[in-house]
């Protein structure tokens, strides 16, 4: 009898093997007529007991296909614009390569795409231009996922701005992208424009929906300092590449405050019980809450 650890390592290795045959053809991955690899069949014979109903390979395959179905369904849901821009063939080839190279490392499938931007930037199956655009778009779409569940701190009242340590709301994500990937949201297909360093903020607005806007490069630097925690005076202590005008700074601060971006870091006590703004239940889209479940996906026999 093999030790538990060996059983689990062999079983998990089988799950991670590429989908083949009918299971593969039940997904959007490029179809294949190949059956199971000899390695998969050997693992199945070694691990699973032949039953009167299901052969060892059939038993292992029921787990194998559910592993892939669950991950592919989830990640496709999280990167709809990348899917549209990359096109079906490229998107699914990228997802298969990504899931093979970067298995989930979190308790929730919401984090499955965490490494997709970095992986895409190095994926050699597409040209360098597409790598830059697709990686930037993956980073942007993942930011929308991050802010969905990020904490919300108390906003700083205007009268306290000069007297307390300031922080940036955790649900504000700052992005410095090599291309204007936000334009992709309006495209029907990949049509790259001039590449330019682009600064974006993605955040959760007062109604709980995700929002994004472009920000000035200096604004990006100041908000990055705010993220580290800073007094108002220290925010401007170090020089920036360009000296912003007082009107610019006043405009930025007004926006940040209107959007509740300037916040007080929580005390140890409140950190254990995150603040949640109560909002009306009217037209809120709750659909992304249920990312995890115990059910299997229906399938072809």
């Amino acid at each position, binding site marked *: *009898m*093999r030790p*538990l650890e060996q*059983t*689990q*390592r062999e*079983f*998990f290795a089988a*799950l*991670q093997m590429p989908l083949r045959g009918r299971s593969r053809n039940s997904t959007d991955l490029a179809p294949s007529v190949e059956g199971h690899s000899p390695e998969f069949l050997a693992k199945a014979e*070694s*691990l*699973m*007991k032949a*039953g009167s*109903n*299901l052969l060892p390979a*059939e*038993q*292992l395959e*029921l*787990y194998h296909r559910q*592993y892939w179905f*669950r*991950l592919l369904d989830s990640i496709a849901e999280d990167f709809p614009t990348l899917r549209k821009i990359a096109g079906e063939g490229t998107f699914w080839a990228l997802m298969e390569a990504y899931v093979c190279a970067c*298995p*989930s490392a979190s*308790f*929730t*499938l919401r984090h499955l795409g965490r490494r997709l931007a970095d992986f895409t930037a190095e994926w050699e199956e597409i040209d360098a231009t597409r790598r830059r655009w697709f990686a930037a778009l993956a980073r942007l779409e993942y930011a929308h996922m991050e*802010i*969905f*569940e990020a*904490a*919300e701190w108390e906003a700083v009242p205007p009268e306290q701005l000069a007297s307390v340590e300031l922080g940036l709301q*955790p*649900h504000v994500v700052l992005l410095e992208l090599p291309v204007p990937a936000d334009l992709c949201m309006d495209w029907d297909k990949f049509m790259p424009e001039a590449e330019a360093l682009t600064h974006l903020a993605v955040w*959760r607005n007062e109604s*709980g929906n995700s929002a994004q806007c472009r920000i000035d490069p200096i604004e990006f630097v100041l908000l990055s300092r705010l993220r580290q925690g800073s007094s108002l005076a220290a925010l401007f202590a170090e020089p920036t590449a360009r000296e912003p005008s007082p009107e610019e700074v006043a405009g930025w601060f007004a926006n940040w405050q209107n959007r509740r971006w300037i916040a007080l870091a929580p005390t140890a006590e409140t950190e*254990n*019980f*995150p603040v*949640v*703004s*109560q909002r009306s*239940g009217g037209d809120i889209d*709750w659909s*992304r*809450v*249920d*990312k*995890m*479940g*115990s*059910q*299997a*996906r*229906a*399938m072809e*026999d």
Partner: protein
Amino acid sequence: MSASRFTGGVELATGIGLRSPHYRHILSEKPTVDWFEIISENYMVEGGRPLEVLDMILEQYRVVQHGVGLYPGNCDGIDRDHLKRLKRLVKRTKTPWISDHLCWGSIDGSMSHDLLPIPFTFEAARKTAANLRMVQDFLEVPLAMENVSSYGEFNDSEMTEWEFLAEVCELADVGILLDVNNIYVSSINNVFEPLDYVNFVPPERVAQIHIAGHSRYERFIVDTHDHPVVDPVWKLYERAIERCGPVATLLEWDGRIPSFDEVWTEARKSETWRESALAKKGTDAAA
């Protein structure tokens, strides 16, 4: 309803799984439901929509936490960060007990996000029980383990699934969440008599029962939670109640989710089966 040390002394009747298509109805119509079960992992976050809706539900309803990612059968132990997140959620929900699955699911930090079967060996039972003891000590709330649907059996198994469930729960001194649909699914896939399973489970440990629907294929069943409960599962439920008493019962419906009213009507069918089971039990006791 029965109260035991595995439910924290709390008695609950019929509940349903809290799912996002029903949030709006629940928040606006405030239907009378004894309790909701939540999937812990959907709310183990720092903020945003998940905690927002949870807080609104908690203002009006009792919530019991049910997890899908504890993986007590993992050979490399329990993830401490996962436990810390879970405990923080326990403080928020004040769940009377917490449940998860008797399974494994990750190795070296790579997650399957599935409820993978444990080989029914004495080594696995000892390791799983040791993990569960640590979890229960850390969470400080009664813990119940659910039997999973399975699609195969290991060559290495040294006992039946029901013997393994009982062995682990006795060794760890935890409760059982008996999923009678999972028993039925596994009994078809692995070919055994499902009543043998129900009749073996230590009734005093059963804190909760799950019922659900499934998808039947030519040679196997998949636990899809996307249909009404079938009669053979109701019969297993009736027998389980006969043995365990009026245990808290929850309907899971996770795929092709119908209206709230349809799900709730299906869940309430359990009350008829429960009454008939308790009547049988009373008759048997009198005889």
